[in-house]
């Protein structure tokens, strides 16, 4: 590519560049460059100033943010508190991302550089949520002018401004010279959509792209061994699991669930499917997430114990069941391996691949036995990772597809949500994780690492655990 | 006098085509006596085949009456029609296209017998098929052959055997020999004559070969563009053709003899289109004698004496 242009390949095209219209990874990765949020979660999971230089909690239900002065939008407008109010109000009213800020009662903009957020109830992880790319700050004027077409005419305060979008192929961004933190190091950034993993690596090798996200496990070696390329690999916030439908026989029996946990050889899966790019999962949230309980032991692979547990549950001769997956190749592979492993303890598993829409729909309705899904705790806070998956109010489509119900867990999760005491929260979450692991509504498989392949010319690239990496400091 | 087996009155058959109504058969009247042969001649597209098909009700007439043994068969219902199929049969021109290529000789001949339940059992069926094959001169060994393995003459014999299977009284022969070589043609013509004598069959014999029609017919009907222009006995027609078209037609036949070189009447132009024909005599445009009247008025077919019917204004 050209010297001043950074070309980034990812596996799918963005859907929309309106933060309130979508919440998918490919879009976030682009929006991250165009917009800023009030506060930012940095690569080390610390909350640092973004558009807000300062913030404080006035009382349990009131937060005050002081805005950075002289911040320019790409259209030349200056950032005002009214834009923030407009943005958050719009977000609350949006269908897609309102749930991220569902704690907001109202937003006030008493001064040009002061924003007050009133909460419905105390909400501890508020900053993590406001650091979500969906909470990017928009320019009121730009949004109003563009109307329904805002998704293709984004205007932010970020280091890059939007130039063009060839649907399905590429999005071109250009350095924003007036960016509050200074101009970025490259003139142009192009996000290319290269669906096939193999092709992303090939494009990286041939120099067609400078950075390729999500290198296929099998291709990692190639990137590492290539003289011109580097591979960066780091833990992410995502966790993969096999869920059991606890409303169904025999998964209503704890021993059965535990037995399956013992029967799964996680390391084999990580080696075979991820080529080692993962860490055996212990708790439903990844180690980088606030509230992770490091004391939980790895679930051991023990066929004998599994058989014994099955015997206790009355399934000495095993049973027949199904495992559902969507058409994601990694999940299909996992299913295939798990099928093979469970056969060793006498469980006869049939794999059913469902198309994504049907998969979500039918697992929400509880028609499944076992299923494979993953979860990314994007906010880096245990609340996001545990509440949706294990709170009894979230059964079905909201996230709790195992139909897990435990009054103590409910209590803990509710309490931790409103508590503002870090230590107390941590303690509560540790306990919740212990209960969940013991009850085993799911077999936690692994925490995957994320990787990026890049050309050695590319400098200053840092992986963000949540997956949307900033290109602000990157040079070439 | 001989009795009429078939009589056709004011028969019309129009086809709807893209640019209008095609008058394939337009107000045709004729009759055929029992045991006789009516030859139908005329140039390509003049409606000979259509007339034959309408008479058999393979096509539904647009208008007119078809009296078979005195009954109007146009009024027959399904069941009556099925029975009529035993009385009237057809032999086609193309001995290849008219035989189902996936059926053996015996299957083809047996089909009508089975449909009309004319035999009681398999043995009888076999025997009857063998008889029929023998009648038309097909060797026994061809019993299980397929039509494509046979030559045109034999194929045509299958068609004849199929028609004879139901013991019909009346057979429409639609150019049964046109596709055959002269030597084979002669064999088939002889066969047909023999069958007629043996079974007292009545033929409607369609052809465009005047020598053939003269040889086989008792009466001849000359058609032009969907209409009958002349109808009389075979002898009379060749001795005394009255219609200018008939005259031209007869003079145009190349005769394989050097003795008498006849004067040719060469017609101008070609047959015009039968689609939405203009009023007046259809032949007028090509007629050497046409008058104004011919272009305005359609001549009626009338008897000019001796059973010689003609449709021409000029013949008194």
């Amino acid at each position, binding site marked *: 590519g050209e010297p001043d242009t950074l070309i980034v390949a990812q596996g799918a095209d963005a859907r*929309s560049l309106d933060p309130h219209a*979508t919440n998918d990874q490919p879009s976030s990765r682009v929006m991250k460059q165009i917009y800023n949020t009030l506060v930012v979660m940095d690569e080390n999971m610390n909350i640092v100033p973004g558009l807000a230089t300062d913030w404080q909690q006035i009382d349990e239900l009131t937060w005050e943010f002081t805005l950075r002065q002289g911040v320019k939008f790409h259209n030349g407008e200056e950032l005002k508190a009214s834009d923030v109010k407009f943005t958050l109000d719009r977000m609350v009213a949006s*269908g897609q991302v309102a749930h991220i800020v569902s704690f907001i009662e109202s937003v006030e903009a008493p001064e040009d550089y002061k924003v007050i957020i009133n909460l419905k109830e105390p909400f501890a992880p508020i900053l993590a949520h406001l650091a979500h790319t969906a909470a990017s700050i928009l320019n009121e004027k730009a949004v109003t002018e563009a109307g329904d077409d805002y998704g293709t005419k984004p205007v932010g305060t970020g280091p890059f401004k939007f130039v063009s979008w060839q649907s399905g192929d590429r999005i071109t961004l250009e350095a924003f010279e007036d960016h509050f933190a200074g101009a970025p190091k490259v003139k142009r950034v192009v996000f290319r*959509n290269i669906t096939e993993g*193999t092709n992303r690596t090939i494009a990286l090798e041939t120099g067609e792209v400078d950075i390729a996200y999500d290198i296929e496990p099998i291709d990692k070696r190639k990137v590492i061994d290539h003289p011109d390329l580097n591979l960066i690999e780091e833990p992410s916030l995502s966790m993969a699991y096999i869920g059991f439908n606890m409303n169904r026989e025999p998964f209503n029996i704890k021993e059965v669930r535990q037995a399956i946990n013992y029967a799964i050889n996680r390391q084999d899966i990580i080696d075979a499917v991820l080529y080692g790019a993962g860490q055996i999962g212990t708790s439903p949230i990844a180690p980088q997430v606030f509230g992770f309980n490091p004391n939980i032991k790895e679930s051991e692979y023990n066929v004998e114990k599994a058989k014994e547990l099955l015997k206790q549950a009355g399934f000495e001769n095993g049973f027949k069941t199904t495992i559902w997956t969507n058409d994601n190749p990694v999940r299909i592979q996992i299913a295939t391996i798990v099928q093979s492993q469970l056969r060793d303890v006498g469980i006869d598993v049939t794999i059913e691949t469902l198309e*994504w829409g049907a*998969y979500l729909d039918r697992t929400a309705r509880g028609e499944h036995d076992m299923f494979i899904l993953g979860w990314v705790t994007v906010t880096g806070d245990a609340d996001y990772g545990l509440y*949706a998956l294990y709170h009894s109010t979230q059964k079905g489509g909201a996230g709790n597809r195992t139909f897990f119900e435990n009054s103590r867990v409910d209590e803990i999760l509710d309490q931790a949500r409103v508590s503002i005491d870090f230590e107390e929260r941590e303690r509560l979450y540790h306990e919740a994780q212990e209960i969940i692991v013991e009850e085993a509504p799911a077999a936690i498989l692994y925490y995957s690492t994320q990787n990026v392949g890049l050309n050695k010319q590319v400098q200053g690239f840092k992986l963000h655990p949540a997956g949307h990496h900033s290109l602000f400091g990157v040079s070439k | 006098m001989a009795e009429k087996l078939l009589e056709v009155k004011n028969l019309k058959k129009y086809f709807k085509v893209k640019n209008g109504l095609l008058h394939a058969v337009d107000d045709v009247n004729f009759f055929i006596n029992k045991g006789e042969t009516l030859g139908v001649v005329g140039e390509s597209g003049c409606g000979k085949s259509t007339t034959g098909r309408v008479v058999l009700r393979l096509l539904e007439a647009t208008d007119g009456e078809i009296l078979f043994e005195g009954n109007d068969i146009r009024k027959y219902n399904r069941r009556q029609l099925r029975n009529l199929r035993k009385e009237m049969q057809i032999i086609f021109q193309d001995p290849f296209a008219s035989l189902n290529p996936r059926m053996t000789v015996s299957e083809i001949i047996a089909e009508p017998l089975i449909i009309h339940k004319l035999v009681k059992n398999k043995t009888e069926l076999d025997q009857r098929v063998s008889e029929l094959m023998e009648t038309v001169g097909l060797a026994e060994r061809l019993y299980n052959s397929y039509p494509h393995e046979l030559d045109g003459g034999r194929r045509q014999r299958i068609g004849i055997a199929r028609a004879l299977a139901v013991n019909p009284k009346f057979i429409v022969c639609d150019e049964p020999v046109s596709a055959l070589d002269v030597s084979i043609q002669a064999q088939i013509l002889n066969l047909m004559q023999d069958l007629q004598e043996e079974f007292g069959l009545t033929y409607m014999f369609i052809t465009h070969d005047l020598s053939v029609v003269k040889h086989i017919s008792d009466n001849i009907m000359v058609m032009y563009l969907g209409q009958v222009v002349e109808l009389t006995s075979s002898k009379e027609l060749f001795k005394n053709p009255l219609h200018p078209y008939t005259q031209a037609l007869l003079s145009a036949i190349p005769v394989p003899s050097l003795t008498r070189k006849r004067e040719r009447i060469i017609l101008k132009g070609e047959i015009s289109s039968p689609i939405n024909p203009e009023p007046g005599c259809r032949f007028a445009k090509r007629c050497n004698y046409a008058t104004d009247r011919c272009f305005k008025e359609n001549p009626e077919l009338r008897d000019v004496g001796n059973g010689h019917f003609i449709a021409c204004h000029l013949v008194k």
Partner: protein
Amino acid sequence: MAKYILKRLLMLIPVILGVTFIVFSIMYMTPGDPAQMMLGENAPEEAVEALREEMGLNDPFLVQYFRFIGNAARGNFGRSYISKKEVVPEIIGRFPATLQLAFFGVLIAIIIGIPVGIISATRQYSIFDSVSMFFALLGVSMPNFWQGLMLILIFAVNLRWLPSSGYGSFQHIILPALTLGTSAAAIITRMTRSSMLEVIRQDYIRTARAKGVAENKVIIKHALKNALIPVITVVGLQFGYLLGGAVLTETVFSWPGIGRLLVEAIRQKDTPMVQACVIFIAVTFSIVNLAIDILYAFIDPRIKSQYK
């Protein structure tokens, strides 16, 4: 002629109505909730419900369908559920890519297929004939995406001659067009050959030879034009088919065409996008067919006289 074209275009209306109805039914009846898909797997139930209400997804089927038809009749095909973009400009934005690929794919197919077909026919049963027919068969037998990957490995990875994927320059189009072109070329070769063989046996070819016309002129002037009609049909079908998108090839080469758009939309239950794509494909297909029919008339005067 104009009347004929108009008639043909009017015939499209019932077909499109039927198509939209069926597509709508399929999208309605297959499991998967668009609202849920939009919000992702971890959206709260109330949010999904609210969105369903907002999108009118809770209305009875027919209400939804007729609302769609009513809007479509006014030229409003709606916005994508997923991206919120208007579907029509989105499709039109993708159309050049699709058109280019279809065009060059078919062009390659023609450049290879027609001459090879002609030579095969004129030298029936020769070595050339057998070899070219074998390759033609190979062309149809090779799974497209496999062939695409192979081409990428050879030309992009090993030889470094061409880019491995993407859209933009002329170089980008070569490999995907080749992938599509070879299988279409196979079909065109076979069609040209059989059609040529048919025509060469015709009496008027013999007449031309009897006139003393040189052999190559017999083939090009007398035979080819007559042989072209069935070939054009195939070319048209192929072109139409490629305009509808060649999903696998598009995916392998990250080509931003209609095919992928449609498949993505189907998988995300993006009903407005699916509808618009299908209508668009049906219309282009019909227009291509119509164009072919008109082309016939220019080649064959007998057909021309029918249109009058």
